[in-house]
């Protein structure tokens, strides 16, 4: 295919205007010894029809959740994506634009970012939101670096019950910045608060907990925040925005920074990305926040308008002293979340959360009735829980595939001490029939 509109006549006229005889001449500044003296070794070009066929064949080699009932979560969830979301983010005025540097012709994107920021502040009960970060893993990492800048301290305490990929990402970044990351153990699926108290010290920049944590357990965030604040460390809460329909938000238990993964807000699982990292914080920490921020202002006739603001924090102004190196973020995913949350509204977010709780608890109860199965932990949970299985969970998952069920995550993959358990996620999309079928299939496998 070819998206170049030039005719050969156009080309010669343009070359003439430039004053050269060939396009090659325009590349005369490229040293000949490094120039590529052959064609790139790539498969032959495809027409649109060939491409569609080739890509459809590749897509067809994946087994989708259209054909399987999914109980797999672990940070990426099979929530319902309403049609309106797909239609709005498919408006090419949005998706073919870039970062709204020219505010006067970007009011659509800027206003929707401003609305997104308001929605995220409302959900998390915090003061300030940025315009998005890459994902949950990098959001936690940015929060740790932000806390270190705010406190001028280098020690980060994070619970082992935080998503393993998030902790791994944090460690990768921390290594280069000489941040010391200490992991707090968990007991019965919940972070050991006493261990936080023992570890936190005057050199602690922040304490990071996730709730619901990787095992689905709702953590006692208020106690953890208190333990952090006693030593003047900041408290970073990593939360599932869907849970905030009914679960206490970070602003209600004294978090200084709230972050998380907002894939559940209208974004497909998509093999792990693009998803949506978010960050909200308290007002006094605003100028150390990473990422883009939209603000309200007025034009020269007093009309309300929006623009990117607080840019003195950012890389294109502050260069090596910026609060982050982030430039492109996840704007279109943030727009999806904005539309999704507006679609749900005040009642809908509660109802989705309530349905998750009800269905997950029904599933947990039913699974526990199968001989040999029991819930692994005792803390309250939201939409996900670990279940101890009488047979190796990997083997069970293989068996479940026969019944077109995508089972939970065998926890041994990340926690050697939990190799007898499987992490089961139940969203509002699952039906009683599907949950019962999961139980029947498991009964047949043990």
């Amino acid at each position: 295919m070819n998206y170049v509109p030039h005719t050969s006549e156009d080309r010669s006229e343009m070359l003439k205007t430039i004053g050269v005889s060939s396009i090659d001449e325009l590349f005369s500044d490229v040293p000949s010894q490094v120039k590529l003296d052959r064609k790139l070794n790539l498969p032959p070009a495809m027409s649109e029809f060939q491409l569609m066929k080739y890509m459809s064949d590749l897509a067809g080699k994946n087994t989708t959740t259209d054909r399987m009932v999914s109980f797999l979560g672990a940070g990426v969830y099979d929530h319902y994506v309403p049609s309106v979301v797909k239609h709005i983010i498919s408006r090419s005025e949005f998706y073919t634009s870039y970062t709204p540097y020219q505010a006067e012709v970007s009011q659509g994107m800027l206003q929707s970012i401003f609305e997104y920021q308001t929605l995220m502040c409302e959900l998390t009960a915090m003061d300030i939101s940025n315009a998005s970060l890459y994902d949950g893993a990098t959001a936690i990492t940015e929060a740790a670096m932000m806390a270190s800048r705010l406190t001028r301290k280098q020690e980060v305490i994070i619970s082992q019950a935080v998503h393993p990929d998030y902790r791994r990402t944090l460690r990768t970044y921390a290594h280069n910045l000489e941040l010391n990351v200490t992991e707090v153990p968990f007991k019965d699926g919940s972070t050991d608060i006493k261990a936080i108290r023992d570890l936190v010290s005057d050199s602690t920049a922040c304490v990071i907990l996730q709730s619901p944590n990787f095992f689905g357990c709702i953590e006692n965030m208020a106690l953890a925040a208190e333990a952090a604040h006693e030593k003047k460390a900041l408290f970073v809460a990593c939360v599932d925005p869907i849970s905030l329909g009914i679960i206490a938000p970070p602003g209600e238990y004294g978090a200084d920074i709230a972050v998380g993964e907002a894939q559940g807000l209208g974004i497909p699982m998509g093999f792990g990305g693009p998803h949506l990292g978010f960050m909200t914080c308290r007002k006094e920490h605003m100028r150390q926040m990473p990422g883009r921020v939209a603000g309200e202002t007025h034009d020269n006739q007093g009309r309300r308008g929006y623009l990117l603001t607080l840019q003195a924090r950012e890389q294109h102004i502050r260069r090596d002293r910026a609060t982050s190196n982030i430039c492109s973020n996840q704007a279109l995913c943030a727009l999806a979340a904005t539309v999704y949350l507006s679609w749900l509204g005040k009642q809908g977010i509660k109802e989705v959360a309530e349905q998750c709780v009800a269905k997950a608890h029904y599933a947990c109860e039913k699974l526990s009735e199968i001989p040999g199965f029991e819930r692994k932990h005792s803390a309250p949970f939201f939409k996900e829980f670990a279940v101890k299985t009488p047979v190796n969970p990997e083997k069970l998952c293989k068996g479940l595939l026969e019944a077109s069920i995508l089972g939970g995550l065998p926890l041994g993959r990340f926690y050697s001490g939990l190799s007898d358990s499987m992490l089961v996620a139940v969203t509002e999309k699952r039906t009683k029939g599907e949950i019962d079928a999961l139980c029947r299939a498991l009964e047949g496998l043990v």
Partner: protein
Amino acid sequence: MSMPLIFEKSKPGRKAYSLPELDVPKNESPDLLPDWAIRKQNASLPEISEVDLVRHYTELSRRNFGVDQGFYPLGSCTMKYNPKVNEDVAALSGFNNIHPYQPEELVQGALQLMYEFGRDLCEISGMHEASLQPAAGAHGELTGLMLIRAYHESRGEGKKRTKVIVPDSAHGTNPASAAFCGYRVVEVKSDEQGGVNLDSLREVISDDVAALMLTNPNTLGLFDENVTEIAEIVHNAGGLLYYDGANMNAIVGVVRPGDMGFDVLHYNVHKTFSTPHGGGGPGCGAIAVKKILAPFLPVPVVDKQGDLYTLNYDRPQSIGMVKGFYGNFNVMVKGFAYIRSLGAEGLRRVAETAVLNANYIMRRLEKYYNLPYDRHCKHEFVIDASRQLQYGVHTNDIAKALLDLGFHAPTVYFPLIVREAMMIEPTETESKETLDAFIEAMIEIAQLAETSPEKLQTAPHNTVVGRLDDVTAARRPILRWTPPEE
């Protein structure tokens, strides 16, 4: 007129959503969720009907300018046409409704795509191995620098090599990424030709340098002819070379960073390979490296064993992960589709035409605007408003006047080394007619600067809002909506 916010259209009791009836018995036990875990105050999300929701965001979209609306010569951002077929293939269920932790046997298509995309990216850049994990260009930069750091550490030189050299013309993300990798940034000056000043480079190079970051062509749109000398100077001192791939659109198929001597590069898949910019993301900042850096790549790496594609986490020297899972997969799908639809010749034609278009505009505008570096440019070029300053007209005024005439503005006030800079990147997908119309608009503005500068100084006039007050916005930030007080 001011456009209401979604919150201002809210009315208690309205709703757009629908959920199935709860079909499981509801456990009303208070132990289920203890009091301390429950939210005290509801989140005030808007209450709105579906049709009003759709109209609201449709109206907002009409207040936004994208590539589909018109010419978008935003320098260094490569705002080319985003082929529709790529949107369609990326929307296939097989690429969307799959979970990253699904068993590998059930995602062979996705893994094959990632594997082949990685191979293509290596061939196009002259590198040996790739990682698709970074989410955007700046993220790729940071990851690439982490690899460089890991490389030096593996040779016992981690502590010694503390500096990264960045030219004064570099993208702001370069120094920021270096700082976030724990490096001290040393700036080198540009020479009269707009390239790296070799004497200045020789002065700062020593055995404490970890790497030099370079964009070539640089942000002036100029190809640094001394690139092999630069590579030699840095390599001789034991440093490595980082290639900022933001400007790959100028050279794809013509010359490869690997052949120029670079050790690692990032791509902006959303620039070079036409995936839409999404109003500021998501992008894909895939990186490709020479063999010496391959052991340090983030995990997992997609491997091929026989006919089976696998995710390999067993890379003992890996830096770890730089984000969750495998990267912005859906963006990879579009980038891959683009490469496969163009093929080798199509990609080379991209670079050639992008360069032709940029030189054409540059030559036609040099009579009207100051051209600080008078050489063939590559895919973009920089002019400035120094001639218009005498009439009190600044670059920002010119940018805003362009909006009135139906064009997006160029990148302005960048690179920092040119005062009142305008960086213009037309891309290859724009026809001569579009370029001519833009040129006419720029000429008209240059004439207006002389005859009625006030018209430019108060622009834009035809947009949904006029020039916005950014000073007040930064001084007294209003970053969220709050309900009016009763």
